[in-house]
């Protein structure tokens, strides 16, 4: 079944219709996988065969919760991207659609691979077709931009290759991604390897100092290219952090955590501020991705189930909303042939439906409650607040900034006096079909996120346990996806902070909110969740002797980071 998913057929007909229909095959398969997926079973649908036995390289695939979400997103966005290209791509269609299929294959492979070498191969496989998509079908300075994209990502992946080889040898000549999670590697090596792998992922995500390729590539790529880039390629970077960099090198994660927090916060705020300043609508959407992906990284590095759940959800959300924005922008561009925000104006009068859709997705993207991004962002901020309150507070300010850039752009583009009175052809049936699934998903995820989160609960738990092995924070509770609990928890977190400001025991209370049992709310809460809280009490009892490793014995037998266990920063 999965083989079929991974090898979409290369079709020969000179038309996008065949491509579109063919791309529905992986979508249907992905749906089947989605329905049959068992969240409790770890990696589902495992299959594999020996590939290069001499080097112990295997062709192994499998799906866990996070990969499932990514596969579903890939399978959803690819047909839509193809649909968007029917009118846009006028020549060399065969080449174009087969390139998109190659991209899809590379992405699917990256998300399913359970062998690190295989992961690397797929990681590179998705790069080359995108290079051609930008270079052959892009606009403006496409050749230069395509090369920049290629060199940037190659830089990352080629450094990753060295790390990969070193890791392979250090871990006893295996590429098995499950065995590798328990590889005993010294602290120093972990730091280097983490940096090598992170560089590749950070460029792809992109985390801020490595983001310069992104706006160019997104802007010059054709609509389908932008959708795939923003919707899926960036997720591959975040997925790399989730799947490889963080769980494999927990000591490095623990040691470098403050810096990653800082980079994530800088990315969130910087991306938003730059977006405000953009004159080019497509560039604005591109820069907003930097900000949104910063939120994803913030959630991942929080290393608690709220944050990670939020991050995974946010990956999906960003794929949907930014994908939709790019699709709609493509539709706008076909009518107006400009990207300049100031050249639009009064579009809503001429094209009410298109404008409505754009504004709707824009609102989803800025985190309007009831739509998808809101849930993800709230979860991430709660998670981040538990880990680093300051980081959460700083990055939560992005909500304001994103409202500014989205709403301001919407005002300039869609309202005011119409500048192009003659353009009146509103959304066609094709375009409606192109956006409808995304709009449905946006509402669905906004109202009922459990539909996605229930799939990832087990994987998130594993991730938090693996990546947080050396991070000392007592919150390891599994997430109950009932939002009121969160609000309550949020209040519990904030209230002690205000009330017991001068108390010495403040820190302990912050870390385990159940302790102040004098508050009646918490007592009631405790009765409700007796089993879970018992677990927590044991933790908070032993809290004075900080024992980060709960049942895990580090291979080296020594404290891996001399700087001491990170305490919740203020």
């Amino acid at each position, binding site marked *: 079944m999965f083989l079929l998913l991974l090898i979409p057929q290369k079709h020969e007909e000179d038309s996008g219709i065949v491509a579109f229909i063919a791309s529905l095959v992986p979508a249907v398969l992905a749906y089947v996988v989605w329905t049959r997926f068992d969240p409790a079973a770890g990696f589902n649908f495992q299959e594999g065969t020996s590939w290069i036995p001499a080097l112990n390289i295997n062709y192994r695939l499998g799906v866990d919760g996070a990969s499932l979400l990514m596969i579903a997103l890939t399978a959803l966005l690819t047909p839509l991207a193809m649909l968007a290209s029917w009118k846009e791509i006028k020549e060399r269609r065969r080449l174009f659609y087969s390139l998109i299929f190659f991209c899809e294959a590379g992405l699917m492979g990256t998300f399913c691979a359970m062998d690190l070498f295989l992961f690397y191969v797929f990681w590179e*496989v998705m790069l080359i077709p995108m290079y051609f998509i930008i270079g052959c079908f892009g606009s403006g300075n496409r050749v230069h931009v395509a090369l920049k994209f290629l060199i940037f990502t190659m830089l990352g992946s*080629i450094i990753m*290759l060295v790390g990969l080889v070193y890791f392979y*040898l250090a871990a006893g000549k295996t590429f098995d991604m499950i065995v590798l999670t328990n590889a005993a590697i010294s602290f120093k090596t972990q730091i280097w390897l983490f940096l090598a792998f992170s560089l590749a992922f950070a460029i792809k995500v992109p985390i801020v100092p490595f983001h310069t390729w992104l706006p160019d590539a997104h802007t010059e790529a054709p609509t389908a290219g932008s959708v795939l880039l923003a919707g899926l390629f960036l997720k591959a970077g975040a997925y790399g952090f989730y799947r490889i960099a963080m769980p494999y090198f927990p000591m490095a994660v623990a040691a470098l955590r403050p810096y990653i927090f800082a980079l994530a916060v800088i990315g969130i705020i910087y991306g938003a501020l730059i977006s405000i300043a953009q004159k080019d609508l497509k560039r604005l959407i591109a820069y907003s991705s930097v900000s949104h992906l910063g939120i994803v990284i913030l959630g991942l590095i929080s290393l608690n189930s709220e944050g990670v759940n939020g991050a995974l959800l946010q990956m999906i959300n960003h794929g949907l909303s930014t994908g939709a924005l790019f699709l709609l922008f493509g539709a706008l561009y076909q009518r107006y042939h400009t990207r300049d925000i100031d050249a639009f104006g009064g579009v809503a009068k001429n094209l009410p439906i298109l404008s409505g859709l754009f504004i709707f997705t824009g609102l989803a993207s800025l985190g309007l409650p009831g739509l998808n991004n809101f849930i993800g962002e709230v979860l991430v901020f709660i998670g981040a607040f538990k880990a680093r309150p300051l980081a959460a507070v700083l990055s939560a300010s992005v909500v304001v900034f994103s409202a500014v850039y989205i709403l301001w752009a919407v005002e300039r583009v869609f309202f005011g006096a119409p500048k192009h009175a003659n353009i009146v052809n509103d959304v066609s049936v094709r375009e409606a079909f192109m956006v409808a699934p995304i709009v449905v998903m946006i509402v669905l995820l906004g109202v009922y996120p459990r539909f996605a989160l229930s799939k990832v609960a087990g994987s998130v738990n594993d991730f938090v346990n693996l990546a947080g092995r050396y991070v000392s924070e007592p919150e390891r509770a599994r997430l109950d996806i009932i939002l009121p609990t969160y609000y309550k928890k949020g209040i519990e977190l904030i209230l002690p902070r205000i009330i017991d400001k001068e108390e010495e025991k403040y820190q302990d209370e912050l870390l385990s909110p159940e302790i102040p049992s004098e508050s009646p709310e918490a007592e009631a809460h405790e009765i409700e969740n007796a089993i879970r809280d018992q677990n927590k009490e044991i933790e908070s009892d032993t809290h004075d002797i900080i024992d980060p490793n709960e049942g895990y014995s580090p291979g080296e037998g020594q404290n891996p980071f001399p700087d001491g266990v990170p305490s919740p920063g203020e």
Partner: protein
Amino acid sequence: MRELLLKYAVLFLPASVTAVILLLKSFWKRLNEDVFAVISVMGLAAVAYFAWKSFLGQAGFGDQLSLVSTIIFALASVLTVIFSVSYLDRSKMESAEFLALILLAVFGSIALTGSGNLIVVFIGLEILSFSAYVMAGYNKLDAYSSEASIKYFVLGAFSSAVFLFGIALYYGSVGSFQLVSTVPEDPVLLHVAAALMLAGLAFKAAAVPFQWWAPDVYQGAPLPATAFFATTIKGAALVVMFRVVSILPVDMVHILSAVAIATMFFGNLAALFQEDIKRMLAYSSIAHAGYMLLALVYAKKDPSSAGAQLLFYIVAYIVMTMGAFASLRHERTQISEFSGYARRRPAMALAFAIFMFSLAGVPPLGGFFAKFYLFSGLVENGHVLLAVVAVINSLISVYYYMRPVVVMYFSEGSTARGGESCLCGYSLPGVISFCAIATILIGLFPSVILAIVSR
């Protein structure tokens, strides 16, 4: 007698086929040229067959290393023969002598790689070199070709003299022409001897600082000759260097690392600025010599895996380089000539793009796996920094390998099938598509070749 014949079949066959071709050519004027091609291909196939038999256990000439390389070189020469028949036909030149030269060179390279006796090695080297000098100047009406031949001859003769001097010193130090690993009384003399021998061979492999001839010769020589120099001769020289380094009790890790780094950087940086694809490929082949030299760095420490990694790299490199040279139309192909090539000839453009990507080391192609395998050997033997340098070089190379691809696919260009439309039958497209498919297959299923080279 029969056993002896069988044992030395790999040596004896190419030499006799050479003689047959030349005799036929001299005494049967009206013979169709294609016959020579068929004879040489059959001869080379027989060489590969006998080498394979010996490899499987029958007594034969040379050890496992040289037998595998014999097979590789014979098959590479088959490609060269087919390529050159098409090329010579197109440029209205006689093919018989050229094919004879190729076979003679193969004979030389088999002797060169197969023997542990330095005198035989030297004879092999000279046979190889002299055929190469003539091949470089084969297009005698072209001034560049003659220049290439003269340049190659003068410098090559000098390097052979250096190699010979090294052999003399080796004899003085060890008292034998056999390569042995016993430490002699006078290790200094041995060091000098090894250095001189390696210098002579490094010239053939076009490694820094003996690489200056390469761009001019590669550019001036006829295309199939260039392809032959860049693949078989370079490979043979590296195999012998490997043998010398791994056997002699001389520690050359630092010097070899320095040479490898310099070679990689020189090749890659110089290739960045070339407008002529053939010259760019010449520099790229220097860079690849640098990568292959990396395998020599740890050849002493871990000979079996270094040998396997070197041979695998040579296989992948030969396939993609041969394909890249075969894809060129004529001697001086400016990059800009490829503009719009993807629309005119999509299949050929795709093949050329595959070669470029593979040379740049993009998975899942053969060039990538060769590099990966080589770097894993480097890291395993503790040369992490060297691996990082190599990887950075590989990144630099992406830029210039992408330039033809950019021009082929991204620029409009003319879509008319102009004067270059002559593909001359099926032989040249055959070579190109074979190389392209092999490049992909080596990358996807390296186990087959791994199993052979790591014995």
